[in-house]
């Protein structure tokens, strides 16, 4: 009984802290419609800052609390809203999710940068009033910290409810979500209210972090702390991001069950610690499964800022061929480490292809692509390798089996997807990813089930050899590079074909309006299930290739944060395009690596400026997240910008010849070792970016000379008469190839011109 009471109180306090974090999510979601994935990261940052003030610099606790909770945390929330989240109105769910994930990864990188995790002195975080402050209630001894936590949670629950129901500002905060414009017409200030709510949400996150950290008692780690508060997502979901009482109940259930698992599971169950860690994620998954059905949307067509063009099949073939040639040319001049990095980048690009298929084509979200890769790798390790030692090879059948198994697991995860969309699905996949990391990839011991002995993630690391397919052995690095490049091209072109097929059009239709699709007689369920399976299989194949490139992989290779970063960068690259996936792989692996090496090389070469260059080395870790955050401004992705720039090159033959000629010259100089590889990289970037830019300017200036100021299309015919060019442009825009409009006399005189 004594134990039970003790653990119940502990569980209530933990649940209380979860509730505080979850209520912050509810507050920001209620007022801005953005689910803040960065909530955990804000809590983490607050914990580190508080530690710095309290123990790093020895401030008294009240001062440190005032500084963190009263000033810094609300300020961070307000700034986040003003600088980042405000721009997200009218963007798709994917963009909203990606931007807040970007903030999360950014804050995490920042914390690792400032508070070096490999520092020699461990950072100790203590309970309020020190580790020995106990209250004696009857026969129980309870730390004051625990009592304080639970009391604060209850106070906050009542406080928020009062705010949202009994104060005009609180009601107005709810009104902002319904219709910010209408609130403005009422005389309210929606922007200010949303900013205040973000400040409040950030405050709650910080408070939760400071309360939870000493309850866990482990050393402070940026990743673990971020994920810890993510456990609160389950509680927020239980309250469907609206109801505070239900959120409170959900949080208590999570807090209590996790502490009871610690208390009552027999210690010989070696998996109970992993189970304890993954419990909130299991809870989240179940909550999402039983959540009442989301209504099919479709009554209003959402006007989104995202725009994706569909590439033609011809373009896809040309691009594929070009890519193979480019890879070959790069291989010739690259050092061995360079080839390794490029191959790894391509394997990540293949995994990113699964995201393009799922999110770009079908509008569904998967935040745990690498977890599917992990499953495929485990299948290959156990069933897909022939030979031993240096002669071991991954078999084709092994890869295919892995693809099938991941597809089936994908189908299982897609179960909630059949009913859920957007945010809820994203959370379900994230729960799956964290579950795989915490429960499956920690399965290192031998288990016995019905007399069958097996280990899942043997010894914490799996060795995956290169594949041998038929007579072709891809063991050599160059051969494997071409295999990966070829695989990317084949899957990529396949996806473009798919996009052009009836199936692809059905996917787009489903993405735009599931309700309309269903009324047209499509089986939305079959579509969703099939696309999820296909996507999971591609992620699995990519994961196997990644493992085969690395050689021996451990659990860190499939980290949820890596999955999130890959998803984010793919969205940055352009989630609607195959090239967006390539961008993601190259950027996340090769570009960051190259930038790092280049900066370190500079630091060595120019030792007087070493500090500055090493600063930039750290800054590079924050770079991907920073780029993710900017998505709010251009939701169609960077590739779409690059493509727009390239259009200039396409339109002018002379410019195209200049660019290709220069590039060839640079390549020849590098191949003959006249210039170094670094100069090749710099010159190539200059050639691909600066030449079209300058050339475009010159061409534009030349074209503009003698041409009058353009007349907006709606004024043509009013301000000046229609010309042949206008009619031709109109025909092109309306897809009326060769239609001759007979009313214009000039057209009638020269019919050849009109159809040109």
């Amino acid at each position, binding site marked *: 009984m004594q134990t039970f009471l003790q653990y119940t109180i502990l569980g209530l306090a933990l649940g209380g802290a979860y509730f505080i974090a979850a209520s912050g999510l509810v507050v920001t979601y209620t007022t801005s419609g953005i689910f803040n994935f960065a909530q955990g990261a804000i809590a983490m940052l607050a914990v580190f800052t508080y530690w710095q003030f309290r123990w790093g610099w020895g401030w008294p606790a009240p001062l440190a609390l005032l500084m963190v909770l009263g000033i810094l945390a609300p300020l961070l929330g307000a700034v986040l809203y003003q600088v980042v989240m405000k721009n997200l109105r009218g963007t798709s769910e994917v963009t909203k999710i990606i931007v807040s994930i970007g903030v999360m990864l950014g804050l995490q990188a920042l914390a690792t940068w400032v508070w070096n995790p490999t520092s020699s002195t461990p950072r100790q975080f203590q309970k309020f009033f020190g580790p020995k402050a106990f209250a004696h209630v009857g026969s129980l001894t309870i730390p004051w910290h625990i009592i304080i936590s639970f009391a604060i949670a209850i106070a906050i629950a009542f406080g928020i409810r009062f705010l949202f129901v009994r104060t005009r500002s609180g009601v107005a905060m709810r009104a902002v979500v319904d219709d910010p414009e209408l609130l*403005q017409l009422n005389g309210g200030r929606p922007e200010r209210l949303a900013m205040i709510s973000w400040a409040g949400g950030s405050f709650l996150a910080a408070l939760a972090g400071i309360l939870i950290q000493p309850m866990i008692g482990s050393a402070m780690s940026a990743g673990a702390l971020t994920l810890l508060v993510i456990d609160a997502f389950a509680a927020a979901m239980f309250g469907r991001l609206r109801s505070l009482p239900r959120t409170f109940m959900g949080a208590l259930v999570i807090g209590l069950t996790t502490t009871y698992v610690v208390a009552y599971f027999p210690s010989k169950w070696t998996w109970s610690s992993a189970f304890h860690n993954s419990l909130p994620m299991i809870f989240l998954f179940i909550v999402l499964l039983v959540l009442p059905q989301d209504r099919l949307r479709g009554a209003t067509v959402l006007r989104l800022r995202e725009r994706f063009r569909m590439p033609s099949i011809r373009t896809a073939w040309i691009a594929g061929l070009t890519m193979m040639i480019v890879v070959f040319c790069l291989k010739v001049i690259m050092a061995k480490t360079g080839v390794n990095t490029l191959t790894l980048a391509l394997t990540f690009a293949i995994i990113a292809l699964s995201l393009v298929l799922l999110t770009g084509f079908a509008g569904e979200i998967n935040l745990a692509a690498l977890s599917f890769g992990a499953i495929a790798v485990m299948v290959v390790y156990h069933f897909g390798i022939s030979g031993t030692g240096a002669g071991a090879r991954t078999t084709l059948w092994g890869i295919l089996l892995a693809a099938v198994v991941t597809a089936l697991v994908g189908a299982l995860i897609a179960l909630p997807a059949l009913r859920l969309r957007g945010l809820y699905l994203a959370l379900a996949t994230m729960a799956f990813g964290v579950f795989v990391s915490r429960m499956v990839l920690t399965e290192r011991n031998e288990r016995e089930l019905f007399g069958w002995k097996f280990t899942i993630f043997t010894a914490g690391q799996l060795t995956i050899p290169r594949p041998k397919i038929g007579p072709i052995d891809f063991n050599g690095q160059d051969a494997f590079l071409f295999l990966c490049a070829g695989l990317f091209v084949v899957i990529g072109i396949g996806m473009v074909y798919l996009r052009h097929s009836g199936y692809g059009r059905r996917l787009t239709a489903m993405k735009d309006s599931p309700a309309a699709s269903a009324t047209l007689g499509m089986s939305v369920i079959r579509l969703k299930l099939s696309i999820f399976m296909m996507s999971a299989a591609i992620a699995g194949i990519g994961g196997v290739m990644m493992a085969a490139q690395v050689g021996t992989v451990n659990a860190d290779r499939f980290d949820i944060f890596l999955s999130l970063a890959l998803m984010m960068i793919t969205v940055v690259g352009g989630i609607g395009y195959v090239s967006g996936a390539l961008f993601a792989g190259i950027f996340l692996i090769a570009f960051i690596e190259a930038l790092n090496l280049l900066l370190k090389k500079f630091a060595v070469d120019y030792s007087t400026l070493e500090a500055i260059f090493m600063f930039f080395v750290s800054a590079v870790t924050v770079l991907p997240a920073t780029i993710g955050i900017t998505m709010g401004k251009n939701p169609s992705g960077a590739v779409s910008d690059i493509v727009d720039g390239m259009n200039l090159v396409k339109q002018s033959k002379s410019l195209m010849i200049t660019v290709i000629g220069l590039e060839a010259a640079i390549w020849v100089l590098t191949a003959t070792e006249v210039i170094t590889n670094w100069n090749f990289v710099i010159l190539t970037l200059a050639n691909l970016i600066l030449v079209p830019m300058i050339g475009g300017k010159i061409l534009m200036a030349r074209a503009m000379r003698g041409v009058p100021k353009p007349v907006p299309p709606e004024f043509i015919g009013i301000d000046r008469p229609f010309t042949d060019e206008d009619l031709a442009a109109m025909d092109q825009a309306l897809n009326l190839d060769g239609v001759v409009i007979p009313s214009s006399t000039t057209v009638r005189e020269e019919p050849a011109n009109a159809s040109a």
Partner: protein
Amino acid sequence: MSEVHYHEDHGAVAGAPLVELVDVRAAYGTIEVLHGINLSVPQGSVVALLGPNGAGKSTILKVVSGLLQPTAGEVRLAGRVVNGASADELARIGLCTIPEGRGVFPNLTVRENLWMATMAGVSLAEVEEIAYARFPRLGERRKQLAGTMSGGEQQMLSMARALSVNPSVLLLDELSMGLAPLVVANLYEIVAQVSQEGVSILVSEQFARTVLGIAQYAAIVLHGNITRVGTPAELEDELSAAYLGS
């Protein structure tokens, strides 16, 4: 181009103008949709904006309410230029706008909806008193979520705000949208009453008949221009031309 501008009609409306638009141009992105609007709403009168879909009626109201900034020209309120003022600032100084088709917050209760109206400076008790007296049905449903009420009841709720905040200017956008004719007639009766209390009203409508019964002046909007201003009687003939083409 000149045939679509009617600058000379600018003076046709008599009385001291409370709302005045002078050569107002407005654009969505790069596409200009209002090409120089001149319009006055005299104090205490009802001015109807008539015209087909996409003519620019709602855009004119958006510009006046402060939701859309004009790219050129002046918007005047009681003689002062209010270009650049935000919608919430204008709302707090006595401009009440009922936007098209969605004048309520669906996830707030009736009472909470009325509470939002108090930002213009009236107390909640006063707003509730006026609203429930005029629409007893709202009083019965004060704790119901506005989104769960019928279209007519929702429009009552938005009208209740217009009645209770005591505005000097009322902007109504497509009041009749999606409502039964009887409800529409009822609503316009209220509009007429409000106008008799000295409120200046600018109302846009596709269905001209009902609104012409209470409007002192009407302006025909076509392709982003005001093509004609006059009393309802003067405009009878031209209306059909505006809708059906001559």
